[in-house]
């Protein structure tokens, strides 16, 4: 037994698979509840339906610690900047679920004060119908989101990120070089002026002494 445990335990896998496995099975939601859909979310979360079966047991009430933004309810124009700010505060990777008719399209509020769908403000990954959506629909949306995350490639995203960073570094370097050149040019011009002035002075002095 001890000998077996001492043997190296190694599993070979791709990094994509491992990362996606971790992400799909611990989606922590941030409930942005403004209307009746939030009540349905509560019933999804607790005992009877039990969202923790798919690893989303922690409802995080801070955007810093959550992965999924659940927009459940009507979003008015007064509410829109707050929603955008909350979305920007979330750390990458982040996903958004639009729950219910109001969040998807404005619902039956076809009026001056309601945002016609939150996709006008932030990108949405999964849309969910219903007024309000049933917990089963919510589970379906979570499964859809999990499938979507499984399709993502961590390595490709990382490569893109590195490429972006490289380009940014190159651009910054070029900018800095141009800046330095200009600065040097200015310096040279200054020195030339200075030398010319000095020469002029020296000439003046020489003339004075001659006289």
């Amino acid at each position, binding site marked *: 037994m001890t000998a077996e445990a001492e043997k190296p335990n190694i599993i070979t896998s791709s990094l994509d698979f491992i990362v996606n496995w971790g992400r799909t099975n611990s989606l922590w939601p941030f409930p942005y509840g403004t209307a009746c859909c939030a009540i349905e979310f509560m019933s999804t979360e607790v005992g009877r339906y039990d969202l923790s079966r798919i690893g989303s047991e922690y409802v995080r009430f801070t955007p810093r610690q959550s992965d999924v933004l659940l927009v459940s309810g009507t979003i008015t124009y*007064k509410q*829109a*900047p*707050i929603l955008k700010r909350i979305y920007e505060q979330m750390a990458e990777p982040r996903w958004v679920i639009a729950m219910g008719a109001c969040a998807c399209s404005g619902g039956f509020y076809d*009026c*001056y*004060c309601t945002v016609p769908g939150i996709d006008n403000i932030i990108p949405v990954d999964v849309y969910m119908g219903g007024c309000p959506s049933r917990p089963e629909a919510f589970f379906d949306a979570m499964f859809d989101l999990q499938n979507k995350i499984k399709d993502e490639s961590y390595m490709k995203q990382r490569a893109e990120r590195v490429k972006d960073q490289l380009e940014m570094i190159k651009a910054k370097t070029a900018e800095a070089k141009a800046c330095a050149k200009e600065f040097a040019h200015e310096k040279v011009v200054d020195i030339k002026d200075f030398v010319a002035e000095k020469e002029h002075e020296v000439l003046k002095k020489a003339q004075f002494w001659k006289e």
Partner: protein
Amino acid sequence: MKTVEDIFSALEERFGAKREMLDKWGMTVIVSANYLHNAAQFLKCESDIKFEMLVDIAGIDYLTYPNHEGPRFAVSYSFKSMSNAGARFRLKVLVSEDNLSVPTISDLYANANWYEREVWDQFGIKFAGHPDLRRLLNHVEFVGHPLRKDYPAQKRQWLSTNDYLLPELEQRLEVLGYKVIKRSKEVETNDNEFLEGSIKA
């Protein structure tokens, strides 16, 4: 003056009020804007059935109302009696488009403050003498008055930043005896928060 009928006759005598025939409960009186404050004071303090509670203030736009003659707007005040159970009364002021102004009754009824702000927000009727006439429901950058019949119902207006409520808060603190010496940088509005396609106020 034990019944609502007596109040009607008293209002007719004192303030030249007219009875509104369209009201099917027969409890509405039309007064001119000049006598509104006096009529409200009469209903609150002097009449035998005292109407201590202001239930609602509603704006009315008669633009598309069938067979309507007269001024375009109206403001309707609903009162309820607490001492005499079940007694209700309604005052109505007709407001023409040329002079969109009604005296405030927020000194008599404290809750009239927010009702009048709402009517101003949705209909654009000004309340003369109101202590703090700002928008209540719509955001600060909103242009126009959405419950008017000529406002396009599906016209949407984006808000570029959230309402900045700090000055009002500081004002209230100063009333309570505090003084704000320095405002921290984090609470100042930020240009990056402005949404695309919005009007910068």
